[in-house]
């Protein structure tokens, strides 16, 4: 069942500068690419590291710890040592509001 929460606002998001939001006990990394907004779990699937502290280039985020890479649109791991995907959240932008569906995955 969908559970849309107001996570942040568009004016706070800058392309290339990921943002960490905490929604109901989950840490989520939010990214901007042009006018698109994408959201994935902040915790890297490879080790205890925060993806929002990594480097974003386009649709790829590089984990700052060991260099694993993920596609921010799907959460899929695209380079070692990351292999397992991270959860990806549906995002809706309404005006300036950015909503994330944290319901059942």
């Amino acid at each position, binding site marked *: 069942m969908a559970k849309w929460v107001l996570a942040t606002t568009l004016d706070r998001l800058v392309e290339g500068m990921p943002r960490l939001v905490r929604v109901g006990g989950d840490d989520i990394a939010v990214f901007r690419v042009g006018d698109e907004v994408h959201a994935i779990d902040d915790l890297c699937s490879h080790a205890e590291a925060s993806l929002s502290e990594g480097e974003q280039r386009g649709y790829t985020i590089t984990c700052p710890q*060991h*260099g694993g890479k993920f596609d921010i649109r799907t959460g899929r791991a695209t*380079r*070692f*040592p990351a*292999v*397992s995907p991270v959860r990806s959240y549906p995002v809706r932008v309404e005006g300036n509001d950015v909503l994330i569906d944290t319901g059942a995955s």
Partner: protein
Amino acid sequence: MAVNNPMVTDDYAYGFNDGDVGVLKFGQGLTRQTVEDISRIKQEPKWMLDFRLHALDVFAKKPMPRWGADLSGLDFNKIVYYVKPSENQGRTWDEVPQTIKDTFERLGIPEAERKFLAGVSAQYESEVVYHSLHQDLTEKGIIFLDTDSAVREYPELVREYFGTIIPPEDNKFAALNSAVWSGGSFVYIPPGVTSPIPLQAYFRINSENMGQFERTLIIADENSFGHYVEGCTAPTYNSESLHSAVVEIIVKAGARMRYTTVQNWASNVYNLVTKRAVAYRDATMEWVDGNIGSKKTMKYPSVYLLEEGARGMVLSIAVAGRGQHQDTGAKMIHAAPHTTSTIVSKSISQHGGKTTYRGLIHLAPNAEGSKSNVKCDTLILDDESASDTVPHNEVETAQAIMEHEATVTKVSEEQLFYLTSRGLNEEEATRLIVMGFIEPFTRELPMEFAVEMNRLIKFEMEGAIG
């Protein structure tokens, strides 16, 4: 796996012939200039220079690991990061430590080989052997040459894979290697081809291959088979104290690759190595890893099991004597269903040495139907020595099985009694028990290694080698 290698920038240009390379000097310490000069001497394409420089930045930013062996004795500023081939003759036989010479004597190493192993002579007079072996390989389409040459002769193939398995960001020493790598092997085995002989780096000689920052890249294409052998049981002497290699291996669907190492670096060496393989559908990767030498070794050969049916195996031994710390182990990452892994680790510590088994088994959420089995056994031979076993098991699925067992003991009184009552003295009996203990490992070695290994262990146990 993606064909586009994200590590490689689009720019590509030769063009480093300017200037007289003979003028370039390489002293202690590492700067941007050092890296540029290395690349220039090797006449590398621009993408490789960019790769090295990016890695240098990463190396500077990465912290030292806060676990593992004690690396506080390592001074990055006192290391020479590159030695031009022509300068190797500088070392004389007199400068080689007596303990090394003694070991050569005991192991019956031929004269010419001794000089090479000690870094005194740059060439090993078995080029003839090498060339005839090379013929067999070329006929089958197998590519086996040093990595430097591969970058120049097979650029597309190298670019596709280089740095994709172990990116510079992986750890500080991978970053260092990525910046200053030199030597190492490049192997490509075409689909369906079985390599007729073990590929031994040893025969493909020049002193750069025994250097400190080898970078090896092996690609076993679909349904191929290969066996790569690195190192030798005789001690390898190098006045430089840091050996930091990177080995990347890709085993494609249905292929099988075995990588055998016997490391016996001299007792001044810090041996910090990153070895990682990826195995695809129904592929098998086997690491046979022997650690006998060095002052401190940190090495955890790993296999990423990426597609269904992939299999990984690590068979390793670690022997730590006086002043040594072997911090070794293995990592298996199960990232697909129906994958299996086996780790067998045998460690021996004596004369105050210390062995640490450090392992990781990770079963990802999608690894259903997978199975992992780890067995580590340690023998502590005397009351000065120590051992740690620290396995990490991470299970993220309910549909896989993970099993791990370990024991730490001294030589069993009963076994000793049995053997001494049959006429052996205690030392001989202990040696026999130790040989039995590591037998699962030695039986997997190519014969000449096994023979040398036995002689070496015998020698080590006499306490003659420190």
